[in-house]
């Protein structure tokens, strides 16, 4: 056996032993580190839904009180999972919703509908638990009985109830970037 082969032989052993030694030190140090696990769903300090950012794209929700019925969301939806029905009362000439259904099975949580909404009435909630036994149960019906369309008042809302709703819609819309520099960037940055 030549000298270099012997050196290599010894080197191989040393390298193996030292690298294993080093690796074992790292793994041992993990016994003292805090685990990353979130013990969902019960052993958590706070509901996960409460920790999610406002931008989080969870299951879609619609605030029918501030929905203008402009159909922008229905049109932009790439998979047509939103179906809106609007009827006109022939006598009073008043239009009202007869249907506002969203098929959560189909929804791909892209957020395009929320971006198109002028009032922030359709938006992604922080809810993500949608398990149910029947796919039909995943269709969300937002209109139970015919409801009138929302018309924004010129001078702003006066009713405290409605002010809160409009503000909530605005809050969601503020998260979006807009060409005129709206959204989160300009407010803070």
């Amino acid at each position, binding site marked *: 056996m030549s000298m270099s082969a012997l050196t290599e032989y010894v080197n*191989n052993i040393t*390298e*193996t032993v030292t*690298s*294993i030694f*080093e*690796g074992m030190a*790292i*793994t041992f140090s993990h016994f003292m580190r805090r685990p*990353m696990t979130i013990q969902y769903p019960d052993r958590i300090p706070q509901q996960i839904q409460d920790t*999610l*950012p406002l*931008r*989080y*794209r969870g299951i879609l929700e619609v605030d029918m009180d501030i929905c203008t019925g402009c159909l922008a969301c229905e049109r*932009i*939806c*790439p998979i047509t999972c939103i179906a809106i029905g609007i009827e006109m009362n022939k006598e009073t000439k008043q239009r009202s919703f007869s249907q506002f259904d969203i098929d959560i099975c189909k929804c*791909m*949580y*892209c*957020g*395009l509908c929320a*971006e*198109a909404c002028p009032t922030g009435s359709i938006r*992604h909630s922080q809810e993500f638990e949608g398990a149910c036994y029947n796919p039909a149960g995943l269709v969300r019906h937002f209109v139970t009985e015919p409801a009138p369309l929302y018309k924004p008042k010129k001078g702003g809302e006066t009713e405290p109830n409605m002010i809160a709703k409009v503000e909530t819609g605005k809050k969601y819309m503020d*998260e*979006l*970037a*807009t*060409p*005129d*520099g*709206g*959204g*989160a*960037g*300009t407010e*803070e*940055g």
Partner: protein
Amino acid sequence: MEEVTQTEIKPFHAEDMTISVGPQHPSTHGVLRFVVKTDGEIISEAIPDVGYLHRSIEKIGEKVTWHGYVPYTDRADYLAAMFANQGFCMAAEKLGGVEVARRGEFCRVIACELNRIASHLISVGTFGQDIGAITPFIHALRERESINNLMEEICGARLTYNYLRIGGVGYDIKDETCHRITQFLDHFEPIVDEYNRLLTNNKIFIERLANVAPITREDALQYNIVGPNLRACGVSWDIRRDIPYSVYPELDFKIPVGTGEMGALGDCYDRYLVRMQEMMESCKILRQSLKMLPKGPAISKVPVKFKPPAGEAYVRVEAPRGDMGFYVVSDGSEYPYRVRIRTGSFTAMGLIHKLSRGIMVADLIALIASLDVDAPEIDR
């Protein structure tokens, strides 16, 4: 002379064993299948069989609007969704002549580089797992989880981001998020060191990867190997530097190239090492772009009914799995006429048949992992 009668000696004949690796095999990274012909442990041939995850993303492109196709591109490569977003948006912008808002460009770079780190973490993590070390895999996923949390803050989704829009980005990056990204980088860089000490320098790991299935430069070009796999063969080629797009020319970063550190040039270990180094480079890019992030709108004005003039565009993006090409044809209507996504994994799969001859079963797993092929990206 007397004729010597020679008894014919027949070589000991053994049949090759045909094994089907996949589609439900633990280390095929999605649903891939290899028809492997082996002689014991030695593979004589491995024929890749793809298509299990074909979701006809290219056909869908012809049926939805330009804006509406962006979320679909997420699904082309769900480990690096941001880059498919980027590719399609760039193609649409090129066609429609849309100027991207400058802040939007920086937001894109930040999101993309975060995504690149996440994708490479999956790559090197699963690499470790395929070699048999589960711990580095979970450590990599732990760091990726932090990136997912950041992504959630940036764009509201953890996997299929749909962050980019034609003309910019959908959501602006908040200052506090910027701060949190910096915090993450401060935490992440020592972790990469630790990862190196735990896995990269491990003798067993090196022995498993060095000299395994080296790709020559010629093969790499012939088979159109791209991205980190190409760079591991010693070809210094990065779209971000060589066909510059977005704001990458303003940023300072190095292109890691394989050097044959532990064995042959372009072997599995080189491919692994290039990815590890690229993560550190991405950290550098992130720090710079966070510093340079300008003020202003993050998206420019684009009509809701985006109708680019008739024409075609081919753009390339440096995705974690290499040059992702978007060939988009418009006929002037509301819908793309044809969308073609060219991905790095697809061409890399074409090479496996050639590389697999004469290696061992365990090496095939290392080879697949080192090429970082990703089933959704292959099949689209």
